[in-house]
């Protein structure tokens, strides 16, 4: 195990980098696309419902199967993986944005409109800050999910840690298998942890409790305690 690690750490790190690249690109595209789609669908409520239903169906398909659908159409490689993962993420993000919007208290919504702020101003000054914790929560879930599913991408020649993991599985090579598992789960947990910190900060910010007046209680407005 140790000799393998010492001889091949560059390969391992390379796979990690590839994995991060996959996750990063997918996240960027997913978030931007979700934002645009949400704003456009806002004008067509019927289309919005249809879209969410469609994405829900897609989400229920296991990742390997989804990739299997996409490969004949888009070929093997990173692009296909990104498309597949984006489809999953779109579902989660659209629902997340919807939840964030619903979380804005009605009286704040009314106050912002009533005092004379227009659409962009009220969004920038009032709604986005209040929605921030929920949006970050959504992105966190999507990040962790993507990190996991990107492992499957190894099966369709997209590289990443999945490569190491599945190679290890196929050839009964324990070090590869263990490293594959450790790195994927470790990465997922690390990203989750970092995002939770961000989310907790956002909760305090949205409630106006991020200043000197923060109460030093144990379970202080945290979403999760890890």
């Amino acid at each position: 195990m140790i000799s393998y690690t010492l001889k091949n750490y560059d390969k391992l790190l390379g796979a990690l980098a590839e994995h991060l690249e996959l996750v990063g690109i997918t996240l960027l595209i997913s978030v931007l696309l979700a934002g645009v789609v949400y704003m456009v669908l806002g004008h067509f409520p019927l289309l919005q419902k249809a879209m969410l239903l469609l994405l829900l169906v897609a989400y229920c398909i296991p990742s390997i199967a989804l990739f299997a659908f996409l490969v004949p159409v888009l070929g093997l490689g990173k692009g296909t993986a990104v498309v597949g993962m984006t489809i999953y993420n779109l579902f989660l993000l659209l629902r997340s944005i919807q939840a964030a919007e619903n979380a804005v208290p009605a009286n704040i919504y009314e106050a912002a409109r009533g005092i004379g702020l227009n659409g962009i101003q009220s969004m920038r000054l009032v709604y986005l800050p209040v929605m921030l914790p929920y949006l970050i929560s959504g992105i966190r879930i999507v990040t962790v999910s993507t990190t996991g599913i990107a492992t499957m991408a190894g099966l369709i020649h997209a590289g990443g840690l999945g490569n190491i993991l599945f190679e290890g599985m196929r050839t009964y090579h324990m070090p590869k298998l263990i490293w594959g598992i450790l790195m994927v789960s470790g990465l997922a947990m690390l990203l989750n942890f970092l995002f939770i910190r961000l989310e907790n900060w956002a909760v305090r910010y949205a409630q106006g409790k991020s200043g000197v007046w923060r109460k030093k209680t144990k379970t202080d407005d945290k979403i999760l305690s890890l």
Partner: protein
Amino acid sequence: MQDIILEFQNVEAGYPGLNRQILRNISFRIVKGEFITILGNSGSGKTTLLKLVNRLISPDGGRILFKGKEIAQGKPEQLRKNMGYVIQQAGLFPHMTVAENIAVLPKVLKWDKKAINGRVDELLSMMKLPTAIEFKNRHPWQLSGGQQQRVGIARALSTDPDILLMDEPFGALDAVTRKELQQEIKQLHLTFGKTILFVTHDRQEAIDLGDRVMVLNDGEICQFDEPRRLILHPAGDAIRELFHADTALKKLSYFKVSDFADLLREGQEDKGSSVEWEMPMETVLDCMLQGQKTVSVYREGKYMGSFQHGDLIQAVDGIENQGRSQAGGRV
């Protein structure tokens, strides 16, 4: 011809999906500087009426004129910046400090920093709030309900609007704070002469605060009059009931000495125990409670007559009887 600041002409309004209209055939005129209270139960349409003024709701029929111009033209945001809006739970933005909340509109209007800070301090002291940095940097969660509402009113007044719209602003507060704020808003009105539209379901609040009271029932205006005319000429049993629980002293407080000129009798002039023609009737009672058996009335130096104890009893009687026998009211 006085300055009519707000006018409704045959306005109808409802919500989409609702069969019947919430408001039907609403017409009225409000003069600049009046403190108008809008009284009604849930479902009477009072909040709908208020929201029609700043275009949060669109009417289904009729015209609404603000300062002579139809409000339906132009952008609603422009209109609202000139109308202060205060809602029941203040609606302060939780992520902003007190100062930032009050300064929201000035910042959006790109006032310069000094002007903004000056205005914030000015409004804070107007609402009897501390101007210390420590207070200005607080967030809404650190304020009591009463303080939050004061900040809400300060925010509404930040651009010195022509009209102040208030939707049951003191409804969520405890009785003591409510009384305090009622007195303060009355004082503010006397000092600054702002036109105020104040929606409430509290009869006493409506009668105490309003120069004129608009009583809404089931989407229509029952009566829209000064409190004393509501007592003297109620437009129905419901309105008569409004004053049912009032003491004689309270009822008397809505009238002026001049209203009871016919009860004056000839007597001895006594500048020592005198009241003026335009003073409220309760000052007469006040004098008598302090031991004077007769109170002389003067009108710009001229002696008009005197009141005695029995006259006051007759006055109160007259109020009660007139209320009972007459019906009708002007809108």
